[in-house]
C-alpha cells in the first residue's frame, strides 16, 4: 500500500466509522462515493442513515446509487485529509472532483472528526540524533569533554557526545574515560528530555545516575538546548474567538422609492423619467445622475417584458435579507419591461423551471404574491410567457 505523508488511503477509511459523529448527522441520509485513483487508491462508499455510518470497500467501479461522488488521486486525498493540502484549492485546480449534491461536502466536518495520523513515538536515538544541532557552542567555550549516554532497556544503546573546540560530534558506543556519563533507562531518558519526568525526582529516586564530573553534568542543560518534538510537545493554543452578530435594521425608503414601492402594492411597476434626457429609471432613482436634475414624472411600464440577460448562479450565496442560503441554481434576470429601452432593464429573479431554456429576447411576466405589501418580495419572480 502506497504511503503519502506517512499515511495510506486505507488507514483513513479504516478509522471512518470510529470518527463518525452521530450528533452531527441529524437529518442526513446520504451516500458518499469515493473513487480514489492511482497507486494506493481504491473505491469506498460511506452510507449515512439514521445516525449511523457504514463504510464499505468496493471491488468494482459500480458505486450503485450515491448522493455525491468524490474523484481524487490518492496523494491529494491523503494530503487534504491530514491537512497538508488545502481542499478548496485542490477542488479549484480540478484535482478533486465532486459530482452530485455538492453542498453535502459542507456537512463532512460535522459528520466526522478529523483524521489524526497515529503519532510516532520519539525514541532515545531520535533525541540523541539532534545533539549536534542542539549544541550551543557559546556555552561550551574552552571545553574538551566527552559525555556518555548508557541507556538500558527497550530502545536503549550507548552513545558518546564529543565536545571539543566549540564543536560537538555524536558517536555510537561509549568512549573510555568519559568526563560524565548518564546512566538511565531509555524510556526514562525520553521522558526526561520531553519534560515528562522531573530530573530532580529521577535523580533522587536513583532512576538517573550521573557518573563523573558533576560540575559539567550541571552545565549540560546549557550546553544543549531543549529537545523539541513536533509530535509530543504541546504547542500553546492560539485561541480563536468565535462571534455571531445579528442585528435588526430598518431603512427609510424616501418619497421616490416610496412611490415605486407603493405602486407594487397595486401590482404596478413605476419608472421615473428624466425631463432632460428622457431616460427611464427602474427602480426609480432620486435624481438623474447624468443631467443632475430632479426627476418627478412617473410612468407605468410592463408588466411584461423581454429578457436582456439572465445570470445563472450556481454558488449558494446567502440571501442578505434573511440569512438563508438560496437554493441553487437560481436565475438573476435582467428584463426590459414594455415601454423601456437600452439600459433601462429591471433586475429580478427568474422562475426556477424556466432556467433550462431561458435566452435573450424571451418574453417574461411578473408573478405576484397574493397580498403585496410594497417590498421587493411582492414579485416572487418573473416567468416565461409560453
Amino acid at each position, binding site marked *: 500500500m502506497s504511503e503519502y505523508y506517512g499515511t495510506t488511503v486505507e488507514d483513513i477509511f479504516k478509522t471512518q466509522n470510529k470518527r463518525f459523529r452521530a450528533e452531527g448527522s441529524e437529518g442526513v441520509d446520504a451516500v458518499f462515493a469515493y473513487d480514489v485513483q492511482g497507486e494506493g487508491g481504491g473505491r469506498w462508499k460511506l452510507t449515512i442513515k439514521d445516525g449511523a455510518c457504514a463504510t464499505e470497500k468496493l471491488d468494482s467501479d459500480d458505486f450503485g446509487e450515491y448522493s455525491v461522488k468524490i474523484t481524487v488521486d490518492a496523494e491529494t486525498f491523503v494530503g487534504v485529509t491530514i491537512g497538508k493540502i488545502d481542499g478548496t484549492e485542490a477542488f479549484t485546480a*480540478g484535482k478533486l472532483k465532486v459530482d452530485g449534491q455538492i453542498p453535502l461536502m459542507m456537512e463532512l466536518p460535522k459528520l466526522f472528526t478529523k483524521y489524526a495520523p497515529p503519532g510516532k513515538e520519539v525514541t532515545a536515538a531520535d533525541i540523541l540524533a539532534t545533539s549536534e544541532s542542539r549544541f550551543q557552542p557559546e556555552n561550551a567555550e574552552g571545553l574538551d569533554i566527552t559525555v556518555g549516554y548508557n541507556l538500558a532497556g527497550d530502545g536503549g544503546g550507548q552513545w558518546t557526545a564529543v565536545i571539543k573546540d566549540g564543536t560537538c560530534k555524536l558517536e555510537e558506543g561509549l568512549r573510555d574515560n568519559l568526563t560524565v556519563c548518564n546512566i538511565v533507562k531509555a524510556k526514562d531518558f525520553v521522558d526526561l528530555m520531553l519534560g515528562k519526568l522531573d530530573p530532580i525526582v529521577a535523580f533522587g529516586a536513583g532512576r538517573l545516575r550521573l557518573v563523573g564530573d558533576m560540575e559539567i553534568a550541571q552545565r549540560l542543560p546549557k550546553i544543549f538546548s531543549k529537545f523539541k518534538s513536533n509530535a509530543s510537545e504541546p504547542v500553546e493554543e492560539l485561541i480563536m474567538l468565535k462571534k455571531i452578530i445579528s442585528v435588526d435594521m430598518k431603512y427609510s425608503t424616501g418619497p421616490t422609492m416610496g412611490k415605486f414601492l407603493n405602486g407594487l402594492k397595486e401590482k404596478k411597476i413605476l419608472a421615473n423619467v428624466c425631463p432632460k434626457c428622457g431616460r427611464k429609471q427602474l427602480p426609480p432613482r432620486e435624481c438623474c445622475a447624468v443631467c443632475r436634475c430632479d426627476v418627478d414624472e412617473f410612468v407605468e411600464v410592463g408588466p411584461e417584458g423581454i429578457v436582456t440577460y439572465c*445570470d445563472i448562479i450556481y*454558488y449558494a450565496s446567502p440571501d442578505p*435579507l434573511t440569512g438563508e442560503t438560496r437554493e441553487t441554481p437560481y436565475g438573476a434576470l435582467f428584463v*426590459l419591461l414594455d415601454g423601456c429601452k437600452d439600459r433601462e432593464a429591471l433586475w429580478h429573479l427568474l422562475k426556477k423551471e424556466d432556467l433550462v431554456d431561458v435566452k*435573450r429576447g424571451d418574453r417574461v411576466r411578473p408573478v405576484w404574491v397574493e397580498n403585496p405589501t410594497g417590498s421587493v418580495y411582492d414579485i416572487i419572480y418573473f416567468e416565461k410567457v409560453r
Partner: protein
Amino acid sequence: MNKKHKKNRNVAIIGVGQTVYSSHREDVNQPEMIHEAVSLALKDAGLTMDDIDCVVHGNMELFEMVHQPDMWHTIGDGAYGKSAFRLTTGGTTGATLVSAADNLVASGMYDVVMAVGFEKLQEGHTTGGITNMADPLWTRHLQTGALTGATASYMIQEFGEERAKRAAMKHRIDMDKHAVLNPNSHRSFGLDYDQMDDLIKNSPQLAGELRLIHMCSQSDGACVVIMASEEKAKKLSNKPVWIRDHITIHREENFSTMFTYDMDERDPTTHRVAAERLFERNGIKDPVEYFNVFEMYDPSSWWGLDWLRDFFLLEGDEVLTMVESDDFKIGGKIPVNPSGGVTSANPIGATAMIRVAEAALQVRGDAGGHQVPGEVNHALASGFGGTYWTVLFMLEKNLDWQKGEQ
C-alpha cells in the same frame, strides 16, 4: 472633461512591503499581520517610523465586522502619535490609499506618507459583507456578491464559444504560471495548458460560464507602500519610482444599473474611460508600445481578458490574438500581472495596492523570480471595485516626462 492635471510637486514610491498571502493567518491577529508588512516596507526604504509623517490606512468595510479598525491597529501600523487617515472604497481601497497618499505628499502637507492596506478575509464573512454594499431597498435582495457570468456570456456571443472559452482559460493558466514564480502568492496551482479542455468543461460553475478556476481567492495579507516628495525621495532612496499620474472614474449610479448592458452594443466601461482620459492628458498614443508592464486588478479571468481591451484601447479580437500569442506573459510584448495577479492572491483591502507595489518593484528591477526581462521604464497599474470604479496609475523610472510639458 479632461481638465489639466498637474502635481504641485513630484512624488516617488521609496518603499514596499508585503506579507505572504495565504488563506489562513490564524497565527497572528490583525495588527500583528499589518506590522509584518510595515516592518518590511520600512526596511525596504531604510527608514524607521520616525521618518514617517502620516499613515493612511484602509480595508473593506465590514468584511471582518470591525468598525474603524484603524483604532485597533494604531500600534500595528505605527500611526500612534502621528497624523492618520482611514479610507475605504471597496475593491479600489488599496489604489485609493496610494492615490490619497500621493495627493497628501504632492500638496505639500506631508513629506513622507505610508499607505497601509490589509484584509483578513478568513475572520469574517466576505459574501455577507459584500452583499451589504447593495442598496437595502431593492438590489440587496438580488445581489450575488462579486459573481456574474455576464462578461463570459457577452464574450462568447462576440467571439464564439470555443475561442472565447479557450482564451479565458489560456489567460487563467498564464496567470498561474506567473503566480508560481511569486513566493508571496496565495494560490499557485501549477496548472498546465494540457488541462485546458478539462478545466473548461469540468471546473465547477459559479455563475454561467464563470467557473471556480476563473475566480479570485479570498486571502489574508497586508501591503504597505511608502511615498516621499521629490526632495526627500532623492535623499532617501537610490531607486525612487515616480508616480506620474493617476485617475479615478465612477460611472454607475448604483448597483441596479451595473449589469443592464445594452443588448447589442458594449458600453464604454469605466476602464476604457479611465484609460482614454489618462493617456490623452499624458500624450500616450499606443499604451501597448509605451508601457513595459501592467499590473491589473483582475478579479476573474473573464474580467481580466475583457478589461485588457479597455486598458490597452484594443479593438475587435486583438485581445484574443494577443493572449493566444503569449503577448501578456512574462517575456511577451506587454507582460500582464507577472505577480500572478488577483486570481493568485486577493486580500481585498490590499489587493489594489499590491498592483501598484508590484509595478514599482518591476520598475526597480527588484521583483525577483517574476521580474520581467529588459528595462522597465514605464509601468501601468489598475484597481477595480464597487459599482465598476476604476483607478489607474502610471509609474515611471525616470523623472523625464515633464520635459515635453509646458
